[in-house]
């Protein structure tokens, strides 16, 4: 039954599983070209939509595997952590993240991938990110109320918001992703010549 119980591996074995998983994740990001800021920033200029394609492929794949495991009774009910929805902090965080992404050319994970391939811009981004984390950590008490209570909607899923079955949400997200892939190809073709 999923998630797998790794306790039999011991402390060192579990740590090794984290390292292997992290390595595989970074390897896939690098293979997708996400260790290069030009590829990532091109998303915002609509010339290269690989970020959208890779991310939505990952979402659809993970969603279908998780939902399939649930349907087949392989997923332990309740084991899946649903991140609570904090509406306004999510909006503010999304804007900050997006602005940082288009200016720096990376998001947190891809900057680490870039650093792993010894890119200078990746190093600068990681240093800036660490400094930002320190500043945030030192000042978070001033706006803790905003982060913890503003727009706190609890553990919310799309099925709950729209009052439709989970299965229908899965079908709609797959259809949406396919529609976006189709549109992305046309947008790329249009902007590549401009």
């Amino acid at each position, binding site marked *: 039954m999923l998630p797998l119980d790794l306790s039999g591996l011991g402390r060192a074995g579990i740590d090794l599983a984290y390292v292997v998983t992290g390595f595989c*994740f970074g390897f896939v*990001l690098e293979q997708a070209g996400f260790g290069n800021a030009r590829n990532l920033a091109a998303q915002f200029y609509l010339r290269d939509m690989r970020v959208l394609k890779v*991310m939505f492929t990952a979402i*659809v794949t993970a969603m*279908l595997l998780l*939902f*399939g495991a*649930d*349907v087949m*009774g392989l997923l*332990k*009910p*309740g*084991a899946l*952590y649903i*991140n609570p929805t904090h509406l306004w902090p999510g909006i503010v965080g999304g804007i900050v993240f997006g602005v940082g992404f288009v200016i720096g050319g990376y*998001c*947190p*994970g*891809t900057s680490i991938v870039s650093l792993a391939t010894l890119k200078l811009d990746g190093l600068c981004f990681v240093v800036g990110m660490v400094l930002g984390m320190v500043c945030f950590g030192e000042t978070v008490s001033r706006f803790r109320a905003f982060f913890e209570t503003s727009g706190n909607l609890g553990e919310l899923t799309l099925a709950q918001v729209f009052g439709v*079955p*989970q*299965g*229908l949400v*899965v*079908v709609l997200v*797959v*259809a949406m*992703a*396919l529609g976006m*892939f189709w549109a992305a190809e046309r947008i790329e073709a249009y902007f590549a010549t401009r």
Partner: protein
Amino acid sequence: MLSTRRLAAGAALGGALVLWIIHSPEPASRLAARQSSLEKKLASEEIRIDPAEVLELSYNPAARLKLLDLRDENEYNLFHIAGSRRVGLEALACGDLPPLSRDDRVVVVSNGEGRAAKAWLLLSAAGFEKVYILAGGIHGWLKAFAGPGVFDEGMPKCPFDDCRRYRFDAALGDRHPAADPDPEVLTGRTFPRKIELKTPRKRVSGSCG
């Protein structure tokens, strides 16, 4: 000739449609898949908690105790533990769950343990991991806190002791003293503790990559 892309797109959409069709979200359906493993746990004493421990936990907000009473409405109106909420077994089986958090400790209550055991199975199958049965049910509670004259040994006993064996002169609900006993009654009383309260660690979410 179909391209690989179109095949992959068709497989994803077709797979999603098939999963939607065969998906059964009701706890009763989920229970069928996990029945044998859950029944082993149901047979253990670890999930049965003593009335004294329930009373003790009810005074500790960190326990996040939720009492679900599975008895009929008339039995519930006759007497119920203060703070408990009545739910029907049929509603639970259909997925009509009361508002509960995964962090709540849910104690299911029936006259004995029959309906409570069924509710335990349904809630566990629905993904609630901190579900317990009130040991001895309302009968056990009344024996522990109501004093003589309420629990009637002479009334007929049915399987799992789930038929009512108590008498009240009127429908008192939670107005009877035994519904909300003074915690002082626990002084000097020993009972097996099944729940160890730990300081919860805040869960962290992952990043986007």
